[in-house]
């Protein structure tokens, strides 16, 4: 396998992304989005697409830049640094991976950023594709979808929805699921935006007797779990990368504050109690960064064996981000608690990112299974 160090190309990609986002999407953009009630900035997304980011996992034949999962992780990490809101993970990572082998003209739309996707999997408080109860009743070559999907990232703004529904078996079983690719405006679909703490687009989607055909199915009927597994791994890896970038961004802000804030006639960064906590946080971020790089590498090189690597990454990224944002607020003191200051945005996105696509316990259990516990 290739090295976990950044290669020269990867370093260039990271520097270019950082340079662009520092100028085009600092954290105050998120504040503006929130204050104006929009989930993301469509102009910014268009620019990102023009740089090949939306097509990072789409083959060149379909108009993509096909840079791979490691590159997707680097981009997600940079977006995490300044909390950039975009449909990147839902469309460019999850949908692009799920549809990669489906002969689909939609890939070109994903690659140029014009077609936005959302993935509708969860139905309750916690992630778990096998828990899917929503039914897709078969009759001949047709299906009728009824049920409710919750916590659908980018669900309110998406043009199309990948939805996992049950065509056989019962909730809790991985068999009997089918993945559908539907236009979000199809009759019987109603969406309601949820007001999540990270100020991004999460929606509840209700399916009331939505008609679908075999043409809408991705992968095999009753084989939806397999059809979505790789895309979920890819999304989890990219989200882990985003959370690690988020950790690095929040940490840089905190370390900067430690170097300038004066109390008791001293720079507070001279206090060993704070120094050691900062050094510990940095160590956690470094260890997590290795897991992120490894997840991208395994997805690129041995995608069928990626589950363990991805779950290590998501578990680590979740835990590290939680530590860094909690310490970030604490070390900033009162100002860290104010809405005027940005640290709170990091904390709120970290909490949503911790839940989305599986929390610490979900991924720890996957690691345990893979490691014979």
């Amino acid at each position: 396998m290739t090295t976990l160090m950044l290669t020269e190309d990867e370093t260039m990609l990271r520097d270019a992304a950082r340079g662009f986002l520092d100028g085009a999407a600092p954290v105050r953009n998120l504040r503006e989005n929130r204050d104006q009630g929009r989930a993301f900035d469509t102009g910014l997304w268009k620019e990102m697409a023009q740089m090949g980011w939306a097509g990072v996992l789409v083959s060149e034949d379909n108009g993509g830049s096909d840079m791979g999962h490691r590159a997707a992780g680097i981009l997600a990490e940079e977006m995490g640094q300044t909390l950039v809101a975009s449909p990147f993970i839902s469309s460019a990572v999850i949908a692009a991976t799920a549809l990669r082998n489906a002969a689909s003209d939609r890939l070109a739309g994903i690659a140029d950023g014009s077609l936005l996707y959302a993935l509708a999997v969860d139905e309750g408080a916690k992630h778990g594709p096998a828990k899917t109860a929503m039914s897709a009743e078969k009759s001949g070559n047709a299906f009728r979808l009824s049920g409710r999907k919750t916590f659908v990232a980018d669900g309110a703004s998406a043009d199309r929805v990948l939805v996992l529904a049950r065509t056989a078996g019962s909730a809790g079983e991985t068999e009997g699921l089918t993945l559908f690719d539907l236009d979000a405006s199809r009759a019987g679909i109603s969406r309601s935006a949820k007001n999540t703490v990270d100020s991004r687009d999460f929606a509840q989607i209700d399916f009331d007797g939505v008609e679908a055909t075999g043409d809408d199915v991705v992968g095999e009927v009753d084989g939806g779990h397999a059809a979505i597994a790789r895309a979920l791994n890819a999304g989890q890896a990219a989200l882990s990368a985003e959370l690690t970038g988020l950790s690095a961004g929040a940490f840089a802000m905190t370390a900067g504050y430690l170097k300038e804030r004066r109390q008791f006639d001293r720079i507070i960064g001279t206090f060993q109690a704070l120094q050691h906590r900062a050094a510990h946080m940095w160590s956690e971020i470094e260890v997590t960064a290795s897991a992120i790089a490894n997840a991208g590498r395994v997805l690129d090189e041995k995608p069928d064996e990626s589950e363990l690597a991805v779950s290590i990454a998501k578990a680590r990224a979740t835990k590290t981000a939680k530590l860094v944002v909690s310490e970030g607020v604490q070390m900033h003191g009162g100002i860290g608690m104010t809405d005027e200051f940005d640290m709170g945005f990091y904390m709120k996105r970290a909490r949503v990112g911790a839940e989305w696509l599986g929390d610490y316990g979900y991924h720890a259990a996957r690691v345990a299974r893979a490691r014979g516990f």
Partner: protein
Amino acid sequence: MSRFSTEPDLFRQEIASYISDNCSAELRGIPAGRREVCWGGKRFRFSSDAQRDWMNAAAAVGLTAPRWPEAYGGAGLSREQEKIFREEMRKAKAPSPLESFGLWMLGPALLAFGTEEQKTHFLPQITRGEIRWCQGYSEPGAGSDLASVQTRAEDKGDHWLVNGSKIWTSYANHADWIFALVRTDREAPKHKGISFMLIDMESEGVSTKPIKLISGMSPFCETFFDNVKVPKSYGEGISSIVGEQNRGWDVAKHLLTHERTMIGGGGGGGILGGRSLGDFLNSLEDGVMDDPVIRSEAMELEIDSLAMAMTMERYGDMAKAGGVGNASAMLKYYGTELNKRRYELLMSAGGAYATEWDGPFGSTAPEWLRTKANSIEGGTSEVMLDIISKRVLELPSK
């Protein structure tokens, strides 16, 4: 020209047959935690003829120090060749032919700071397992504050007169020579008056006293120097000081950084016998893995250990590509804290059985106690955090 072929596949074949021809079957296949370590040295008692023969055979072709140049007793292997050599060793389940502080510590210091004559004199003695070295850094009054060493070496013309004592000298009672930090200039600021000195343990006035630890083991000694005469030179160009006089701190710092890069995520305990932590825990009776707290700690430990292994890999590549500098303090800090957690978990999983010195859980108890030193020796966790905060994060000192 290397003794071995440069073509990778041929090289692999040559190495594989060298191992199978020279490492006796009785040495192979023993799990890593239960192997008899071959330390070498004048007073070493080999556990078997096979152990001695394997050391000699490996030394004859430089494989006790695979990366060192052939001129100094190494095999002169490239990084890729060394990797193949390690792979073949694992495949053959062959034990390391020789381990020593000479290979780990003094060798790298000499390679970086020694004169040509010092290298040709001292290094082959190490690779052949003839001389066993120990390290004399800490003193009773110089632990974390290593640079405050008080052991002094007075200039007496043709020799140095050394007085003082060292503590935590690993296996000093079995060692032939010691590399020690001694103060050669008492007027200079504390970092500036130290020299890195090579001393024969058979010199008159050197004595050692083992220290019994909480684990019941005595891997460390106190070492005393009472009017010890150390020649300034052991021959043409072979100074008893490595690097410049009074600049020994540079050598020590280089070695400490090197040492920290080598500290891994930890093996995981002899009791595992090569099994994964999960397999081992599942094999235990009394439903240990049904305990939600133990289970949760085990899962978290497993995640962190696997992420740490990836970090060791990443930092290893960074070190080869140009160095990691002070960031290596993170590896030392994280790796040792992780190892302590691992042993706390094993003790908890073993329950009453693990509280026996040598019961159903083997030597887990003394190993557990031993791990408590991991975050003290080679720089405490607190010193590592200081290094990270000051040198890596550049937090202010005042």
